[in-house]
């Protein structure tokens, strides 16, 4: 692909993500916030595609955009009364929040400017480095160095615990 077009598209996705995330936290209707969240997550999947993490983009779309947002929408429908709008907090809290945000951004930008990253050689944004599906599978289920069988199994136990906990919490008394 043409590098310039790639770069322009990348910046479009990035700016769209920023705007949509700001919208998601400032909108007054919860359902709209959930929809903005969905769009942000889809943009994230696009970003992963730019980075040639195709598997990751697929996981992002199916788990986040497919599962989590549906859960959100169901929970919103179950818990909001008709026509209910979000109420704001006191002004003081906004000041504290803005202070924390400004400090955080300052620290991040400072660290980013200060530090020289050792960029690896190779095609960055514009190259096509497709990761082999076989490599992904072997890395996920191997036991050697840089292989991830143990976290995989721990994660399965965690998911089981989540299912049991969810049933326990949501059960009628």
């Amino acid at each position: 692909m043409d590098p310039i077009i790639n770069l322009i598209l990348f910046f479009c996705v990035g700016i769209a993500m920023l705007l949509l995330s700001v919208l998601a936290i400032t909108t007054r209707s919860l359902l709209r916030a959930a929809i903005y969240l969905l769009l942000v997550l889809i943009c994230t999947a696009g970003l992963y595609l730019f980075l040639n993490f195709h598997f990751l983009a697929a996981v992002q779309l199916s788990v986040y955009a497919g599962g989590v947002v549906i859960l959100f929408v169901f929970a919103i429908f179950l818990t909001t009364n008709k026509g209910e709008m979000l109420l704001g907090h006191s002004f003081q809290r906004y000041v504290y929040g803005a202070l924390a945000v400004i400090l955080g951004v300052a620290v991040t930008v400072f660290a980013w400017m200060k530090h020289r990253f050792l960029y690896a050689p190779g095609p960055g944004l514009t190259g096509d480095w497709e990761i082999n599906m076989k490599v992904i599978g072997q890395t996920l289920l191997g036991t050697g160095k840089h292989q991830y069988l143990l976290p995989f199994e721990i994660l399965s136990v965690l998911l089981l615990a989540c299912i049991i906990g969810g049933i326990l919490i949501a059960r009628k008394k």
Partner: protein
Amino acid sequence: MFFVGIFGFVTRKNMIAILISLELVLNAVEINFAVFNRYLHPQHLDGMFFTLFGIAITAAETAVALAIIINAYRTVGNIDIKNLSKMKE
């Protein structure tokens, strides 16, 4: 590229739709993992798998949190954090 770090910080402002902004923050962190993996160590896949596990853990956490919220709604009647100062009625 480092939009995303700032993006995570900006979203922290919200106190009401806390869970949604939490999702945004976690998403930003995951993007950072993937990006660092791609640009600094493209020969390894570590960042990608961190992101993968992060996504799975986030999904589980969201499910449990929403179950708790629905339960709280059933007890209290709405989901404002102001009305949830008691753990037990």
